[in-house]
């Protein structure tokens, strides 16, 4: 298609009109994280200022931020690992044996409001003395990660040609052996997609940790929120904390961009 001159001038402007509102909150957050409190509360808002590291220093030294970072990592990695362990065979079985009911059940798990399980968990976990434990947090976060893994992997396994495992089975391998040694290695792109997405969802989750964790296992989103609830808001500190919590997810997205797009859009496009 031939592009008119008017189009060639207008198109970049329209694209900028899309990009600027998307990016501006991130830019403002980043700028505020490097501002002193005086610069932040000055009116009119300052675009030019001398940057300071004091907010990051405060976040990482005065607050227990590294502990919360470690907690978020443990919970995210734990939940994603167990979800793969439980979810990969289930997804494979859904794809190979067309278990429609199972996949609907997993979809329902994805759609249901988390709070409708949270209250019973709270009662059970506190009776079992599991409040503020990694066990309770990881268990709850598996319910975030597992549907993502099964959802993505069951449609991925459908694209793996059946002949692959059949030829292995002709050679005498069992089906479970073919699954582990042939299907799984062939499915690395799908696994990368589901691991990235489910880790990000676990990383960002606020509600489960808010109820099930206390000081010892507190995860980052709660720590960032707690920054806010002090009497006088230390905006610089909060913004530095916000930058710190978003950075890992953004880096993951940058590395695995193609996979993240695919994972987020596949369900809707394919049905």
């Amino acid at each position, binding site marked *: 298609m031939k592009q008119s001159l008017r189009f060639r001038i207008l198109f970049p402007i329209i694209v900028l009109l899309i990009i600027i509102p998307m990016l501006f909150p991130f830019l403002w957050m980043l700028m505020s994280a490097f501002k002193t409190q005086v610069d932040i509360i000055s009116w009119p808002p300052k675009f030019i200022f001398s940057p300071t590291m004091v907010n990051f220093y405060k976040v990482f030294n005065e607050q227990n931020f590294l502990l919360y970072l470690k907690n978020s990592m443990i919970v995210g990695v734990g939940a994603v690992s167990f979800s793969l362990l439980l979810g990969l*065979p289930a997804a494979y079985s859904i794809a190979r044996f067309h278990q429609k009911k199972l996949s609907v059940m*997993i979809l329902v798990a994805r759609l249901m409001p988390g709070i*409708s399980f949270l209250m019973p968990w709270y009662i059970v976990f506190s009776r079992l003395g599991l409040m503020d434990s990694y066990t309770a947090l990881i*268990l709850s976060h598996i319910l975030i990660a597992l549907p993502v893994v099964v959802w993505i992997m069951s449609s991925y396994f459908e694209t793996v040609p059946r002949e692959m495992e059949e030829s292995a089975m002709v050679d005498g391998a069992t089906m479970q052996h073919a699954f582990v040694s042939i299907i799984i290695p062939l499915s690395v792109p799908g696994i990368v997609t589901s691991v990235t997405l489910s880790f990000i969802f676990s990383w960002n989750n*606020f509600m489960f940790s808010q109820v099930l964790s206390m000081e010892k296992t507190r995860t980052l989103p709660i720590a960032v929120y707690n920054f806010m609830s002090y009497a006088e808001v230390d905006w610089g500190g909060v913004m530095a904390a916000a930058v710190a919590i978003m950075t890992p997810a953004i880096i993951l997205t940058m590395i695995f961009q193609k996979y993240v797009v695919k994972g987020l859009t596949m369900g809707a496009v394919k049905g």
Partner: protein
Amino acid sequence: MIKSSFFERNLKYLFPLPALIFVIALMVFPVLYTLFISFSDWTLTSGRPLVFAGLSSYMKILSEPRFLDAVGRTFYFTIGAVLAEAVLGLTIAVILNREFRGKNPLKFILLLPLVATPVAVGIVFNLFYDPTIGFLNYVLSLFGLPQSGWVTDSTSVLPSLMLVDIWQWTPMIALIVLAGLAGLSSEPYESAKVDGATPVQIFFRITLPMITPTILTAIILRAVDALKTYDIIYAMTGGGPGYSSETLNILAYKYSFEYFNLGQASSILVFLFFLVLLFSLGVMKLRKRFEM
């Protein structure tokens, strides 16, 4: 035939079994437990044991103005935000559905709001919305417009929260529709061009009908999430000022973990549960009708 072992013959049941047990233990059982508690009168802080109370929790909730207001707000928030996201997302997707330099970096920018931690997003917008130091009131003052209270004013709090949801989730609809557009066959377009159809005709007669199932699915997924919006509202307003931004999810949280009124909390949860379930089923049916 090679004799197969028990494990192999029953692979179809054994493979999904661990996941199934997990989902039953951590999802099905808790939902049933919530259903059970909803027929009782049980306040954790009172120290009294659970008493069976029939439908009284439901009666109390249904006559509670806070609950009825929360239902209305939940619908208002969901419908308003998702409609705006669908229109904006579709527009963005149609604009970007062509080859140009920098398309991949642009897609990365579209992904950023989707992976950003909602609590942190809410806090960043709180700084934007701050009535005295916020950037948005500064912009209003540049144009000589009256200042707004944004999330601190009960009349503007819900639209302000919806704006955050729209900012965060419009790219999701845009990316889904873009992926859908990329998968369309080019045949109808070619014959339309031969027939001399205008771009507007092509969009409404060919593109839109073909992309409708994708848009509808994107809307279901989004609407179900919007019905459950929690992080942003809790972080930005906690349901306030007063009760003016309390949606069902926030109300259920407060009844459960602030008042520990588990009987009534459960009846709110059961209501929310069925709302989400009905909604998902309804729109899934709707989508089937559009599929040929």
